């Protein structure tokens, strides 16, 4: 019993458990030892060379490469089954019955992986000190870069942990693909072109633009991590808990920041819509794919607030029906912002790209309203339609390259992603294409709103029951 020290009482229980398990896990032990061995081998081999500065640059490259692979690829991958293992292993329900809520469970899992990455980061310090003595080191730049890799690792770990609640292995492949894609670019960034020295000099914080880039990176990364973790929280939370309203409010706040940015002098005709899309995109994706499982305890807080509460509920109730109205709200704010903030004429091809991407999210959501049999599978159904429509576009674009037949693409304009190859190939007809994409998006959105309105009607008995419980004397 002595081993249970009281110090750990100050650490969240989930983190204690995950660290106990994680630090003993073969995956971590092997990776850690391999990391240290490789660092030592490369350091010794580099130090035996004649050119000290060249060796220093080489050591920096090696440090960044090995840490990059560890932090951006190996560590986030450990989150692949973080929540699904608990669900399929029948241990999640045991945890849910304790005082740990779903937020603490997911954050504990995520923070455990981040802590282990931090441990790896700390072990780099001796190598960095040694590397310093070889000379030619941009201390600030390289430190900022290490911290950025660490931050990226934390964001990607959040993505993996958040989506690991999806029981479907296929669905978990999506974040894995993103991570693999990022990992393959690491050697190119470090050893190709200007190498890490060009990045290090940019991040040495001499250039004011570096602050802006860093701030935007941290803000957006933090937002993506929050969105991903919240997906995991919502997936494991009891149905009677609402994990949709606050994320939507946060998305609205972030969207408001993007709107404010659009009216500043830093905004450009391109950066403003990009920011709006980067913030609105994940929020729309989540809102359109939420299962529609409404229970009276969720309605009660809205009903208590009278008419304002009822109006807010249309946009903020959990589930895709309110998600559709929330999406429409974001689209409205986004369009108004772009129209009012950008005084210079917006290139039509850019508008087509943004509207095409927006439509690419809306169409699978509309199809999912017809073909989802089990609500908890809505996200999977959505992703399947997203991939299918994407595949249709790729095939159509390939045929277009072979046969140069414009009609093929026009026949497929019900699929908004088709406008991407269309605008690329027939940029001269941009006005016609822009009008078409606006009409297609509007039709799909109208369809979604009708379906959402129908789904809202089925909420009436639940809302009535919630009203009854509000009016009933307390137990």
């Amino acid at each position: 019993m002595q081993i249970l020290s009281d110090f750990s009482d100050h650490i969240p229980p989930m983190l204690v458990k995950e660290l106990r398990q994680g630090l003993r896990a073969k995956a971590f032990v092997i990776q850690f030892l391999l990391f240290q061995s490789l660092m030592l081998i490369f350091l010794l081999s580099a130090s035996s060379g004649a050119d000290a500065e060249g060796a220093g640059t080489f050591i920096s490259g090696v440090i960044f490469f090995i840490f990059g692979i560890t932090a951006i690829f190996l560590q986030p991958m450990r989150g692949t089954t973080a929540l699904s293992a608990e669900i399929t292993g029948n241990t999640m329900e045991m945890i849910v019955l304790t005082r740990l809520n779903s937020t603490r469970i997911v954050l504990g899992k995520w923070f455990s992986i981040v802590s282990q990455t931090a441990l790896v980061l700390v072990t780099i310090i001796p190598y960095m000190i040694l590397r310093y003595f070889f000379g030619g080191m941009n201390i600030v730049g390289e430190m900022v870069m290490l911290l950025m890799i660490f931050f990226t690792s934390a964001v990607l770990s959040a993505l993996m942990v958040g989506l690991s609640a999806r029981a479907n292995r296929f669905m978990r492949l999506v974040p894995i693909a993103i991570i693999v894609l990022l990992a393959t670019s690491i050697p190119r960034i470090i050893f190709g072109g200007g190498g890490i020295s060009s990045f290090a000099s940019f991040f040495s914080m001499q250039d004011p633009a570096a602050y802006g880039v860093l701030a935007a990176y941290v803000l957006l990364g933090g937002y993506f991590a929050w969105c991903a973790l919240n997906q995991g929280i919502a997936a494991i939370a009891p149905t009677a808990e609402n994990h949709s309203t606050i994320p939507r409010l946060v998305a609205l706040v972030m969207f408001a920041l993007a709107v404010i940015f659009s009216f500043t002098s830093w905004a450009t005709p391109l950066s403003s819509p990009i920011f709006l899309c980067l913030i609105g995109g994940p929020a729309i994706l989540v809102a359109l794919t939420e299962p529609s499982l409404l229970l009276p305890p969720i309605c009660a807080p809205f009903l208590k607030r009278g008419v304002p509460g009822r109006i807010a509920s249309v946009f903020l109730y959990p589930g895709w029906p309110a998600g559709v109205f929330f999406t429409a709200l974001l689209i409205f704010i986004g369009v108004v912002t772009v129209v009012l903030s950008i005084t210079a004429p917006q290139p039509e091809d850019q508008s087509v790209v943004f509207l095409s991407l927006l439509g690419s999210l809306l169409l699978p959501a509309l199809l999912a309203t017809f073909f989802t049999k089990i609500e908890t599978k809505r996200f999977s159904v959505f992703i399947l339609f997203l991939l299918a429509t994407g595949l249709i576009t790729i095939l159509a674009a390939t045929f277009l390259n072979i046969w140069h037949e414009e009609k093929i693409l026009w026949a497929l304009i019900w699929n908004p992603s088709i406008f991407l190859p269309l605008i690329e190939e027939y940029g001269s007809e941009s006005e016609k294409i822009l009008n078409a994409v606006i009409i297609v998006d509007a039709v799909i959105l109208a369809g979604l709103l009708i379906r959402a309105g129908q789904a809202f009607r089925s909420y009436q008995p639940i809302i009535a029951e919630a009203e009854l419980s509000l009016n009933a004397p307390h137990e």
Partner: protein
Amino acid sequence: MSALKVNNLYRYFGPLQAVNGVTFEIPHGSVCGFVGANGAGKTTTMRILATLDYPTLGHAEVCGINVMHHPSEVRRLIGWMPDHFGNYDNMTVLEYLDFYARALGYKGKERRQRIEEVMEFTDLIPLAERFSNKLSKGMTQRLGLGRALLHDPQVLIMDEPAAGLDPKARVELKHLIRVLAKEGKTIFISSHILSELGEMCDSLLFINNGRIVHHGDSESLKRGSDTYGGVLYDVQVDGDAQAVSDWCILQANVEFMEARKHGGRIRIDTQDPTKAADVLARMVKDGLRIVEYHREQRNLEDAFIDILGRVNSGQEAIATPPPLPTVADQNLLS
């Protein structure tokens, strides 16, 4: 106030009516067995009580607290032990209990003390340093029971805790449940092994197709009548056993069921003990030399089958379920 109160509970999974208007109450400090075939609705009802699922319609309360409106409060009162639960890699038995004790809010000395008490009760101290995923089924069940008892719950809900256990582990588990019952805990336990439940439980709840078909104590079930209201008697005579069967042929309300070495089993078409006494008197009057005449106790399996038979033959009145409610479940089922 009852420890568990379920009122008109329904749980539909699409077209499947898993729980279909279940109503029952279990008083504090009692042990209640929950009996039913696979898919009868036992686990769903128990999961709703454990706040792990929600009802389509109806109410469920634990110690007067609504499970749907106040799940957190209910969780403090219950210990839940499912039929199957997984363990963790790279985690010892002690660390497993330590994690749950922390998760339940225990700190420092109090936590260590509570873990020690639970390990002592479930005899897990010799296994403290064993990895929890390397335990046998019996040890795992003891670990599960230990976990469920960490916060000293008032009500224990155990879903098939004896499933897959060897006889020794089953005896150990039964002993632990008896001790807990003596401590005054309310225990709601499901099992397929009716004889075991009969020994442990103050009352038994039979569920079939999502409906409660019987609620009563095991002794009354053993004494109870069969599907058609008859009662079995064992009759032993001194002399020719055939005489009993011959005698029965001539009687209106008595049926010979089965020949035995010195007599046979007879079925009397009534539960009235005075009528049974009349039958005995007639036997003696007609010259049968009776050496033994006693009412046979049915085993619980027979009782269960009889009750199901009664339900199927329409003798047992069961409320018709309401039309499928629209409470999200029509198309929104997990």
